[in-house]
């Protein structure tokens, strides 16, 4: 199957969330939400530091849209239905069409934490990967010490497969281990 010919929905609705492909103009809200959660995100992620201005965020959103249309990467902006607020993202990345398999990444704005939004969005993104993209394996990688991310993976139904030693590039210090969760169909 030619990935370009796959009909991919550009939005998904769950009980409480609306998840959609980014578009021009989303940079502003994206910048505000990552800035608000900066300390919280920096504990585990490197990219928030790279998106340090509104312009860089706008650029990223437009790039993400083009990648989506090329069927290379599917970045969902996650919006709370009741308020339309941007509460985070779930990204279907490292798509390898030949297997086919992919990886999920997620983050939630600090003040919208503890509501189960990440789990809800991750489940929906996994279903999207299997049903809309035809993936056979969806994996989540995080650091063993990232208890929040591990809990999301487990609640979303992912199974812990392994801990990979020295797998993640160093952030202020030494290389890190990675814990791998997977779901297959």
């Amino acid at each position, binding site marked *: 199957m*030619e990935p370009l*010919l796959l009909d991919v929905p550009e939005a998904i609705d769950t009980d409480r969330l609306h998840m959609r492909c980014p578009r021009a103009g989303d940079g502003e809200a994206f910048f505000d939400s990552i800035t608000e959660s900066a300390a919280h995100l920096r504990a585990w992620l490197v990219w928030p530091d790279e998106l340090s201005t509104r312009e860089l965020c706008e*650029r990223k959103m*437009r790039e993400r849209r*083009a990648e989506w*249309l*090329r069927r290379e990467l599917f970045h969902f902006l996650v919006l709370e239905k009741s308020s339309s607020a941007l509460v985070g993202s779930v990204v279907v990345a490292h798509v390898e069409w030949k297997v086919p398999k992919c990886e999920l990444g997620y983050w939630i704005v600090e003040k919208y934490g503890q509501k189960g939004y990440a789990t809800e969005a991750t489940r929906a993104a996994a279903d999207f990967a299997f049903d809309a993209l035809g993936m056979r394996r969806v994996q989540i990688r995080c650091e063993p010490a990232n208890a929040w991310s591990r809990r999301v993976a487990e609640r979303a139904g992912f199974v812990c497969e392994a801990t990979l030693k020295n797998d993640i590039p160093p952030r202020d210090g030494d290389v890190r281990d990675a814990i791998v969760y997977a779901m297959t169909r």
Partner: protein
Amino acid sequence: MTIDPLLVDVPERIETERLVLRPARAGDGPMVQEAIEESFADLHEWVPWAKTLQPLETTEMVMRRSAANFAARSDLLFLLLLKENGRFVGGSGLHRIDWSVPRFEIGYWCRSSLHRRGYLTESTRALTKLAFDALGAKRVELHCDPHNVASRRVAEKSGFVLEAIMKNHARSPDGSMRDTCMYARIE
């Protein structure tokens, strides 16, 4: 001054007197394929991409790739539709973009059953205006076969000036050598 193409705002809908211009999207394949099939004899004579008639799937892929290129600002194809009834007229775009100048090459085609109505002159004027006013163009080029009288008329009616006829500059869809009329408008 360097332009970051991704940050350039490009309108996703342009209206002229009789036409609506918009980027291609998933699902446009069948509409465009019908027009290509109707027009294949004309297209094959002049248009580089019309070497052979491609299947619907290929056309749909071209539309989807074009939507992605538009989002990435690497190539800006617009589909031309009649305002009146939405009928597909043809395609026209700003191609071979060099944002460092910025410079664009405009290309166009019109389905055979709607020739000789001035639609391409209308769309070419609109896209040239877009290039200069919204995209900061310093130069817009228009290449065509010297024997393609209809295309040259569109260029001239749209205010383009013939700068040169370049010898052995391209191949026709049938593989033979041909010269190219280099038309241009500058800011």
